[in-house]
């Protein structure tokens, strides 16, 4: 029994490392690529592997919504805009970039130093393990989430529907061609 649980948690760890590597690789590819359509496709890879990480965490509904809304709807919107505007490879403008390098490189070093300091101090967090084999099932299933969303968070839910309505109208008004 204990042996099986141990093997399952080992599998969790291996899957986490695979999808985390895919995630980080996609994010770095987004930075490196010059053409926006390649960046968009690598962002889809990041979102897909994030959905799989959500599944590892037991958040089934969030994983499904991540694939449908993010990797589906939002990225289709991005790809359509790139194709509609016929966006080509990025052109370099030297003037702004020099300031960015002068300020960005020290900023990056300081930021990495802070992250390294926090990580090296974070020994207590290492003992907290999540996504365990027991109790993870049906934790983020649609039914308990719907209970929470439509009972405790009903007012924010309705407000978001108004927000979406305003966003639709705003998008239509902004993208309309001037007569």
């Amino acid at each position, binding site marked *: 029994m204990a042996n099986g649980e141990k093997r399952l948690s080992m599998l969790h760890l291996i899957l986490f490392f695979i999808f985390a590597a895919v995630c980080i690789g996609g994010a770095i590819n987004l*930075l490196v690529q010059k053409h926006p359509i390649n960046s968009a496709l690598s962002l889809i890879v990041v979102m897909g592997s994030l959905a799989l990480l959500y599944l590892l965490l037991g958040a089934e509904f969030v994983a499904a919504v991540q694939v449908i809304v993010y990797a589906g709807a939002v990225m289709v919107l991005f790809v359509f*805009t790139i194709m509609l505007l016929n966006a080509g490879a990025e052109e370099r403008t030297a003037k702004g970039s020099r300031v960015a390098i002068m300020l960005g490189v020290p900023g990056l070093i300081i930021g990495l130093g802070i992250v390294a300091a926090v990580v090296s101090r974070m020994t207590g967090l290492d003992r907290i393990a*999540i996504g365990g084999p027991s109790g993870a099932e049906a934790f983020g299933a649609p039914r308990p989430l719907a209970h929470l969303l439509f009972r405790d968070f009903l007012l924010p839910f309705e407000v978001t529907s108004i927000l979406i309505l305003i966003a639709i109208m705003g998008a*239509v008004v902004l993208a309309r061609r001037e007569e």
Partner: protein
Amino acid sequence: MVPLSYYLILSAVLFACGVAGFLIKRNIITIFMSIELMLNAVNLTFVAFAAQLKQLDGQVFVFFVMVVAAAEAAVGLAIIISVFRTRETLNVDRVNLLKL
């Protein structure tokens, strides 16, 4: 079992990639995609803490973040289209005036 800190480190790395893309990219669409990457990194933190604390509130927040991100993407891309119509460029260095 995966330690919580691994998820937080992954989220921090993704967020840092988003910030770097926001700063170094000159194409307005790629900058917009970097913002989406940052939102996704924050979502991963929400879900990781929801799983750790065994409370679903974090996942509900992820839902709201997704709604806001979708609205933001729709309006932002509409603004990008309208900027491209008047200026014929997607380079943010060439879009430095509010008025044409």
